[in-house]
């Protein structure tokens, strides 16, 4: 799996660098308008676009056909994309924290509560969106999967809103906002793992020509 991950890092290197630098610049820029920690909502989502660049590149070069003949199992091929996705999300999150920490050191008000809240929202949206779009990338052709990729982010915000309303029936959101979004994050993690299982199952039976 490591070799496939190295390949994806080579493919997406420039895109990852541009995204990370943009996040840092945006972090400082946003601090004049919003709380700098709000960047944590956007950062993991924005940084995962590199996964779809690698998926498109794989399809264009017919790498998927080649890699199956190598000592890498089909579930490892799928697993690598999920690992790559998570790594990029964490990297995005880590990068977004850089301006937050620097601004906090310069005296701007950045609270741990806000960081946890926006971090949970951003990571939940990323995991829910990835859980929808990653399996689709192996079912649909690259053009359709790009559309699904974009729509999955819109869908994830809807799902988060739905989940919050549902949890609100049992735990009042106004008083336990952080706990509620942590529950949403847990559900998103569960969905992402389930999505991996589904994608691996689909890919196991797929003819690759």
């Amino acid at each position, binding site marked *: 799996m490591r070799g496939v991950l190295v390949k994806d890092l080579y493919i997406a290197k420039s895109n990852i660098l541009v995204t990370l630098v943009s996040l840092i610049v945006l972090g400082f820029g946003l601090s004049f308008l919003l709380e700098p920690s709000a960047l944590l909502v956007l950062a993991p989502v924005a940084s995962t676009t590199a996964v779809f660049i690698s998926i498109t590149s794989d399809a264009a*070069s017919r790498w998927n056909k*080649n890699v199956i*003949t190598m000592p890498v199992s089909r579930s490892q091929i799928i697993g690598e994309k999920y690992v790559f996705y998570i790594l990029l999300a964490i990297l995005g999150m880590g990068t977004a924290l850089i301006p937050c920490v620097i601004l906090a050191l310069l005296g701007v008000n950045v609270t741990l509560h806000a960081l946890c809240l926006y971090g949970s929202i951003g990571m939940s949206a990323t995991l829910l969106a990835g859980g929808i779009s990653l399996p689709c990338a192996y079912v649909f052709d690259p053009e359709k999967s790009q559309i699904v990729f974009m729509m999955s982010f819109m869908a994830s915000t809807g799902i988060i809103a739905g989940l919050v309303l549902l949890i609100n029936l049992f735990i009042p959101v106004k008083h336990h906002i952080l706990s509620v979004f942590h529950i949403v994050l847990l559900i998103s993690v569960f969905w992402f793992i389930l999505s991996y299982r589904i994608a691996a199952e689909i890919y196991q039976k797929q003819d*690759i020509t």
Partner: protein
Amino acid sequence: MNNALKISGLTKTYKDFMLDHVSFAVPCGSIVGLIGENGAGKSTTINAALGLIQKESGVVSILKRESLDQDIKEQIGVVFDGSNYPEILSPRKLNRVMKNIYQSWDEQTYISLLQQFSLPPDKHIKQFSKGMKMKLAISAALSHHSKLLILDEATSGLDPVVRDDILDMLLDFVQDEEHSILVSSHITSDLEKIADYIVFIHAGKVIFSRPKDELIEQYGILKCGAAQFDALDRSDIIVYRKLDYEWQVLISDREKLQRKYPKALIVPATIDEIMLLYVKGEK
């Protein structure tokens, strides 16, 4: 005889095509050429053997194992038409990818093959010509101590000089008796040069699987007129084709039939002609 690859009763059905109980073997230390027209089932056979597509029935045994696990995949080198490597990579970056995929990756062998083929290590694959991409794919396939090399239309679209380089490389590879090659191609002249056995697939079925020398030295084409054709013993005819001015009859033992029909014009048959007669002829 030990077989590096043995395919028995391989079947796969599509809406408009069926791979019908395909069976043949690649003996250790030999080169087997898989021939057939476009759409005959060569790539489907290779894809099914490599587990790229799900087979409906049949058994594929590679290096004496029926399950295509990672140990076996370490020992197989596969080259498809086109390089099938991300074009943003360079041969040097590909080396870093491959050494993290193959436990048996031999960096020294890979680098010496790049030098032998004059492939620039830091140039992006997208800037390579088709011949260079193919040489790179073969270099990668030979750099993890493969015992079985499978090439699917790997020489198609290449100029004769590059094809000749590649054929030399393949001949070198089988100098080791543990090494074997299955090569599918519709360029039969290449296979005439290097193959030990020829497997001919037509419309999803194996028509014959024979030693190449037997085909070249014993098969022939009997050329005759209508009267002479009518006088032929039907059991001597494999297939025949009626052209404007003559009948062409494929026969399996030209010396024997020359004695039997001393007045007949019998000429040696090339693999191309044998293939053509099977595809376009009648029984």
